[in-house]
């Protein structure tokens, strides 16, 4: 019996989710942070989507959020002209870094010693987190607001994207090494350290470039404007989402569209694969995050596999959840203490 994707919806935000990031894999699993226009970024357990806590303190929409590798720290970029660094275990605010305009993007180095920020003031800033009082180093050159800034090449270089360009900078000399021009607005950028691959989305295109030389590797066209894309850690698949509310999954090698999923009630703003590649998360204008399985039907996190032989017996038994049921009905059926969702005989559509 073929299995159909059951996305897991993480509710809690009251406004569009504009950015999300996963941590690395830690002894406690991996974690997910979401940036939201409601100003309250949230930390969740990465494999289940369970809410852990909300970082309270920003006074404006949070445009960017990131976790460091071991998920001990979080950083957020907001419309209140500040970037903040948080203790991701206690939820406490550690540092507020004042900027001169809306901050859009934040990224930790591998060792969590430096934080890169970028925003509408068109400057890249590098803060030494061990010396929070010191002035940050600034890199200028962008001619429009910076949307995304990332460390790359083992933190020796910086990649930054504004509306129409992607630029590569050398960290030590703080100078521009190379740049790419686009005639359409760049909507997102992702950096894959293993293989030094850069994923850039613009218009309906999902493009892959070398993060070292910025030379193009390949690109695919999607059926609709894409706002974000993510490459699987093993580089077998990529997922993308955008203005038609759908998630698309492509084979990276052939470019073939493998699957597409409806589910969100608004444009998708961000998509990211988990560090183990078993699931991907999408954040949308509808204020929700959804978790999707990479391999549909596999037992992982909250998804529980049903073996083919057990099918006919399983269908009549409880312990099944169905996406046709509205979220409210599912909420009523689950209680805090129960592990299973009980339902009557399923309504199988032919």
């Amino acid at each position, binding site marked *: *019996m*073929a*299995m*159909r*994707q*059951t996305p*897991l*919806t*993480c*509710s*809690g935000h*009251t*406004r569009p989710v504009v950015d999300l990031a996963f941590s690395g894999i830690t002894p*406690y*699993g991996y974690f997910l942070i979401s940036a939201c226009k*409601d100003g309250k970024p*949230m*930390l969740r*357990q990465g494999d*289940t*989507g*369970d*809410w*852990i*806590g*909300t*970082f*309270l303190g920003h006074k404006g929409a949070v445009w960017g959020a990131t976790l460091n590798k071991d998920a001990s720290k979080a950083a957020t970029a907001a419309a209140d002209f500040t970037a903040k660094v948080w203790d991701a*275990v*206690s*939820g406490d605010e550690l540092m507020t870094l004042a900027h001169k305009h809306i901050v859009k993007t934040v990224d930790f180095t591998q060792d969590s010693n430096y934080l890169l920020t970028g925003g509408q003031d068109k400057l890249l800033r590098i803060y030494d987190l061990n010396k929070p009082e010191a002035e940050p180093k600034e890199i200028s050159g962008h001619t429009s607001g910076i949307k995304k800034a990332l460390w790359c090449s083992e933190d020796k270089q910086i990649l930054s994207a504004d509306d129409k360009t992607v630029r590569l900078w050398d960290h030590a000399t703080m100078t521009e090494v190379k740049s790419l021009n686009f005639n359409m607005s760049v909507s997102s950028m992702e950096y894959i350290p293993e293989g030094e691959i850069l994923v850039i989305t613009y218009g309906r295109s999902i493009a892959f470039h070398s993060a070292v030389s910025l030379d193009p590797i390949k690109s695919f066209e999607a059926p609709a404007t894409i706002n974000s894309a993510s490459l699987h850690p093993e580089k077998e698949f990529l997922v993308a989402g955008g203005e038609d509310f759908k998630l698309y999954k492509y084979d990276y090698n052939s470019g073939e569209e493998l699957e597409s999923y409806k589910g969100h009630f608004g444009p998708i703003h961000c998509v990211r694969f988990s560090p183990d590649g078993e699931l991907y998360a999408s954040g949308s204008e509808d204020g929700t995050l959804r*978790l999707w*399985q990479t391999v*549909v*039907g596999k037992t992982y996190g*909250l*998804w*529980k*596999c*049903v073996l083919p032989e057990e*099918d006919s017996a399983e*269908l009549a038994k409880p*312990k*099944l*959840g*169905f*996406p*046709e049921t509205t*979220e409210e009905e*599912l*909420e009523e059926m*689950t209680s805090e203490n*129960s*592990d*299973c*969702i009980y339902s009557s005989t*399923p309504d*199988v*559509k*032919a």
Partner: protein
Amino acid sequence: MQTPVTIPVPVLRLPRGPDGFSRGFAPDGRRAPLKPEVPQIQECPIAQESLESQEQRARAALRERYLRSLLAMVGHQVSFTLHEGVRVAAHFGATDLDVANFYVSQLQTPIGVQAEALLRCSDIISYTFKP
């Protein structure tokens, strides 16, 4: 051509959402804090108290003024400015304990008049009324 019959992948439960009354980061959660909290160094207690009590008095006064302003609004026509440049007008009814929602009636929206409605305060940027 018949589409293949598929069953959705079963789930154990839905992801847990925020509890609605705290910011989370449970101290007994998976990742307990590594060191106990350092007790705050006590400054000169008397000077500290008076500064604190002044602040507290100011806060209480401001809070009382705000609550009285809400009382004064009851039954009046209020104009709300919401996100994305949306403006709506309504008769103010009441607010809940945390001032998280405003209960209004005769809400004038771009798609018609809603007899009764709840406005989420997180959606409101500002509001104004004439007493």
